[in-house]
């Protein structure tokens, strides 16, 4: 009986784990391996890590130089910081827009909630790439936004928004907003409203009750939403490439350039590994907090 159970459990758990191993863990290891090898002209454009053919026997050729290179050239540090900065600003904007939105949806009458949630998820029906392209049409000098502002007489000269960091932030906020709204909604929706009644009963005005009760209790939702926005935003390539300008320095673009323009796979891999490490740290902090929270409210 229990043997069958264990077998069943194993079989159910197998496909997702197999999927993760084959399409996530192994590629990661391959990238990590490449990041330790040396570049060469040819196919593949790097030397094997383990040299089988040498007469002196099998030899391991580990090259940490690629990582050293990341430290050596200021470009990389600047690109990392640029990514963190733009992703941070975008996350903050998403939070400022997404929190009231999620709150409004969570407190809307039951019949409305599903329609409103559907609206939040609606952009996913269209390809991400097309939606980012559409922003070019809106933001460019002779685009919709400038046209509108000129027509309203608010400005006399068209504004240069496209190909600036502002356009990148707009694009990222637009693209990642649902990832902020949905976890926040899930959190706010399951909040026990009698807590707010209790607060009111004890003499607390609505806004103070929000600060004292709702906000602290929604911290897990804020963290979840922020991680979901921040992490992909840091590594974002498409948005800075399409909407950003020459001074938009983001690590995703640098990685692209290393890989396709310079054909330096080992350095590109090292950039990717460094980015992974940089992002895994906050995620682990997040999970640690989540875990502690879950224990505290059980």
């Amino acid at each position, binding site marked *: 009986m229990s043997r069958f159970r264990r077998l069943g459990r194993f079989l159910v758990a197998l496909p997702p784990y197999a999927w993760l191993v084959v399409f996530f863990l192994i590629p990661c290891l391959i990238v990590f391996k490449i990041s330790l090898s040396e570049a060469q002209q040819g196919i593949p454009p790097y030397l094997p890590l383990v040299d089988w053919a040498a007469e002196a026997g099998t030899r391991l050729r580990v090259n940490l130089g690629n990582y050293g290179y990341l430290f050596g050239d200021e470009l990389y540090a600047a690109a990392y910081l640029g990514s963190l900065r733009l992703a941070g600003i975008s996350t903050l904007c998403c939070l400022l827009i997404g929190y009231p939105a999620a709150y409004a949806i969570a407190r809307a009458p039951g019949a409305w909630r599903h329609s409103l949630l559907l609206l939040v998820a609606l952009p996913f029906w269209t390809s991400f790439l097309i939606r980012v392209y559409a922003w070019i049409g809106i933001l460019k000098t002779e685009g919709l936004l400038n046209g509108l502002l000129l027509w309203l007489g608010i400005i006399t000269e068209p504004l240069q928004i496209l190909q600036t960091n502002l356009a990148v932030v707009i694009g990222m906020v637009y693209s990642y907003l649902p990832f902020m709204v949905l976890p926040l909604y899930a959190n706010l929706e399951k909040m026990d409203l*009698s*807590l707010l*009644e*209790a607060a*009111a009963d*004890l*003499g*607390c005005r609505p806004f103070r009750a929000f600060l004292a009760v709702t906000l602290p209790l929604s911290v897990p939702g804020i963290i979840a939403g922020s991680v979901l926005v921040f992490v992909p935003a840091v590594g974002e390539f498409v948005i800075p490439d399409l909407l950003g300008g020459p001074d938009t320095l983001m690590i995703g673009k640098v990685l692209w350039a290393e890989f396709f323009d310079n054909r330096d796979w080992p350095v590109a891999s090292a950039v990717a590994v460094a980015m992974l490490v940089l992002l895994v740290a906050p995620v682990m902090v997040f999970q640690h907090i989540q875990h502690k929270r879950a224990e505290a409210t059980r």
Partner: protein
Amino acid sequence: MSERQPFAPWTDPGADPLIRFDRVTKRFGDFTAVEAVDLAIYQGEFFSLLGASGCGKTTLLRMLAGFETPSEGRIFIDGVDVSAVPPYERPVNMMFQSYALFPHMSVEQNVAFGLRQDGMPKARIKDKVRDVLDLVRMTGFAGRRPHQLSGGQRQRVALARCLAKEPKVLLLDEPLAALDRKLREQTQLELVGIQDRVGITFVMVTHDQGEAMTMSSRIGVMNTGHIRQIGTPVDIYEYPTSRFVADFIGAANMFDGTVTGGGDGRLTVACPELGHDIAVDYSGALAAGAPVTVMVRPEKMAVSRERPVEGMNWTEGGIADMAYLGDVSVYHVRLESGHKIEVLRTNLRHSGDRPPDWDDRVFVSWHPANALVLTR
């Protein structure tokens, strides 16, 4: 030497009620949850709202707390119409059925929360919190979070949080429902003791009639949005004014009949189920032919194998069921008509006269003063 006055402000026509409901109705859409309720509750009372699930008890309490606004009618607290006063400005505090303790705050912070809203100085908050935690015997738990407490302890903290505010009225929505029976009985007495000490008016919702009986100065019996009767536990049990209340509180034997005559504070009623006429004490006037229900509580009847003495109402039948409960035995006697009567018999003696047993023909008897005429 003055005699100790019984606490009964509701009998004093000059007394002003602390809480007054004036024909209050609450509708949700086209559903009427509370209908035309008139209610007066006095300072120092322990008032219970008793009724089956869904009868509108919580709705009534929530209107008093300010979470629902009456669709019609007005509510006065201490003479002030509170219809337009938001919950955070009302001099009442509510202990929620779910306790609604803030999960992200310690016990101490929970209790201090209401005091901080009042802008009380820190040092005084500290003293006050210590005092109320003392009162509910939770002193050692000040630093814990609600999830680290047992159900009973959470209930005490919720109570302390309300008491700290020293409200004029404390509202309790089924405060003891989550506790096991033993703890519940113990806490009932404690609650009454605390109420005695702090002198705050308590309004409690419950669907446990034993609880309402032991704790309350008065009880309001509710049914489908109406208050059917308001009275002391004794009133409600001994003198229910309607079939519904008689049936809802305790066990009752009820016989439908018609008045055949009367006078001198006594009626004669023909009850087809009993086979012959019975006499009932009744102070009012009812014309012959009026349909009535005669109610007799099981413990006010006697069951015996001997024919009862003259002047008693009686009927006879066979024992359909009996249960020995130690102090008392419960008999279910089936009459010729098929009607069943429940009778309690106190087991007074170790042995001696043989109690009625299976297969016995028995007589059930009761005095006319122990029956009640119900016209509603």
